[in-house]
């Protein structure tokens, strides 16, 4: 119950205070909630008799300064009953005996009065701290905050795209750190893993009625291919259990497989979506008719007729995991709105995989290859996700 409690050990002021005798300076106040508040005193010391009153003082909400005692020498036991807001005086004889031997309780909360309800707001806990300790805390916390803010600014800023930083005038020329791409790609992988964990082959996507159908524009990323490829079109299957390469034309496919219809939503990575009516054969039935090699885990779906924005050949290819290919709503679509596919929508056969982003829904498929290792993906090579499960 003296200054010692509220001083950090080793502070110069502590030493000066310890030297100060009780004649000069009384212990000023109690930190009200000392678990064992009495200074260590001789067992025979009459001050020990103060204990009950000191305990009573702990019930007070706010510790306040102890009143001064004019003559400490005379204070045998002077536990004066203070006013309702004041601590009872704890007067310690033995002068410096008690100094420096009390427990350090600089930051003990004052006990709050009992709340009426579990949900009721409690009054704030107040603590009593020496000004220089408070200054020390403030300095420490504000400095730590500043260091953290600068580190976050540097770390977060370095994750921004090159083009953004250049536009802000922060960097000039190609300055990127090697870990940046790895780090951000790692985030994509984690998100892909989450998407894969969410996927269930038994969970069907929502289907809609014909009145809910919305327009679907031609979304060829670049130029729409010349329809001249359609008469000669055939689908090649590779990586089969038979070890053979199989070639099928559209008539083979439509006569051999049952046609299923579904009205589902196609969701683009850009954010737009369209509800459309598709018909076609199930990918799963093709997998049963032409089983892939036993170690296959992936499908590479390719369109060799795709063009880039300038109209030059730009084969399009995506990776598709076999569980997704086996999903009952994954179609090799031949019809759109009840009509055979037009060149805009990938005549004569396109992949329709509603559990994936639109960019996996390859138009005008020319080759399907079953693979053991994950195949390359057109958009993953351009910084997008690989799995694209939605």
């Amino acid at each position, binding site marked *: 119950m003296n200054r010692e409690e509220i001083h950090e050990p080793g502070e110069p002021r502590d030493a000066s205070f310890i030297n100060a005798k009780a004649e000069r300076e009384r212990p000023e106040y109690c930190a009200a909630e000392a678990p064992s508040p009495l200074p260590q005193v001789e067992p025979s010391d009459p001050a020990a008799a103060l204990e009950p009153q000191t305990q009573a003082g702990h019930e007070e909400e706010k510790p306040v300064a102890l009143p001064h005692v004019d003559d400490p020498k005379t204070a045998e036991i002077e536990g004066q009953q203070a006013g309702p807001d004041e601590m009872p005086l704890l007067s310690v004889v033995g002068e410096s005996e008690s100094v420096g031997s009390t427990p350090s309780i600089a930051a003990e909360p004052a006990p709050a009065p009992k709340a009426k309800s579990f949900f009721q707001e409690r009054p704030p806990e107040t603590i009593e701290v020496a000004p220089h300790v408070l200054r020390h805390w403030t300095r420490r916390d504000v400095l730590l905050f500043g260091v953290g803010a600068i580190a976050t600014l540097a770390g977060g800023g370095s994750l921004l795209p090159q083009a953004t930083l250049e*536009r802000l005038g922060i960097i000039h020329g190609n300055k990127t750190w090697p870990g940046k791409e790895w780090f951000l790609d790692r985030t994509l992988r984690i998100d892909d893993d989450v998407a894969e964990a969410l996927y269930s082959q038994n969970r069907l996507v929502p289907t809609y009625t014909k009145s809910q159908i919305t327009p679907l524009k031609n979304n060829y990323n670049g130029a729409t291919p010349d329809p001249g490829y359609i008469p000669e079109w055939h689908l090649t299957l590779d990586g089969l259990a038979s070890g053979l390469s199989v070639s099928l034309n559209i008539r083979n496919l439509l006569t051999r497989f049952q046609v299923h219809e579904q009205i589902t939503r196609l969701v683009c990575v850009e954010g737009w979506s369209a509800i459309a009516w598709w018909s076609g054969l199930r990918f799963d039935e093709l997998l049963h008719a032409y089983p892939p090699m036993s170690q296959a885990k992936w499908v590479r779906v390719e369109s060799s007729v795709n063009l880039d924005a300038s109209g030059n050949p730009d084969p399009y290819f995506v990776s598709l995991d076999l569980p997704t290919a086996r999903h009952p709503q994954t179609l090799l679509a031949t019809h759109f709105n009840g009509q055979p596919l037009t060149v805009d929508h990938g005549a004569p056969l396109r992949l329709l995989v509603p559990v994936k982003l639109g960019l996996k829904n390859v138009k005008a498929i020319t080759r399907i290859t079953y693979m053991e290792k994950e195949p390359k993906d057109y958009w993953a090579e351009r910084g997008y996700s690989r799995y694209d499960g939605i």
Partner: protein
Amino acid sequence: MLSEKQLTATSTLPENRGVLVARKHHLLVRWSHWLNVPILLGLILSGMAIYWASPVYQHNPDPQTGNFDYMADVGNWICAHVPGLHHYSSPPDWIYNHMSLGPGMLGVALRLHWFCAYLFMLNGLVYVAGLALGGGWRSLLPRRTDVGDAMKMLRYYMGRPFAWLTRRTWLHPRFTTKYNALQRAAYFSIPLAGFLSIATGWAIHKPMQLSWLAAIFGGYSKARIWHFWLMWIFILFVVPHVVLVFADGWDTLRSMIVGWSARTERSDGGEK
């Protein structure tokens, strides 16, 4: 830093004696509060760059420019009317150049958005843990008297600048809780908005596997609208939040860094 004079002024104790301070914010609440700054900034910058790829709000294409994006219209308007911007190189991109990573950056924006979104969810858990450990959640719960008290606070804020100009006294409404009713409404709503942002975000991100979640918000397309406007709730919150915390003073700002406040009286303001 607070001078000794200021500290002791809040307490009845003379200088060099103890100072009473009130515990205000749990360490985890403070951490998550400040981490929200870079995370939300990253989410908004990348989010608007994603918005650019397919704006939620579109009109019929302009016959001359082919533009269909209201955000591009806003950019055009700003560049036409704000002095000094008349020669801006690409007016339709003005919003995206100033409120996002930039136009044409969908791939990088998505990556950054996922990164910040996962951090935002983790940070939300830290915040909830801090509220639970420190008991601070009780101060955020709405009260029956809140509507009337909020009106009093609104009246106070509305009249404050006028009273300052006319040098009249304009008393702050008295309250004995940690926050006033307006603050409480804001601090209760913003975690809720954070939760809804995360929920609508998942509804957009996984509309097939989590189709039930998208259905709660009226389907995929409506979930995008929710997500977009929830961003504006954060922006609209931050502006008065920052203005008022500076108006309220150093003690309030400091308390979010150090955790305690030297204001132990409950009716001395404390708005932010």
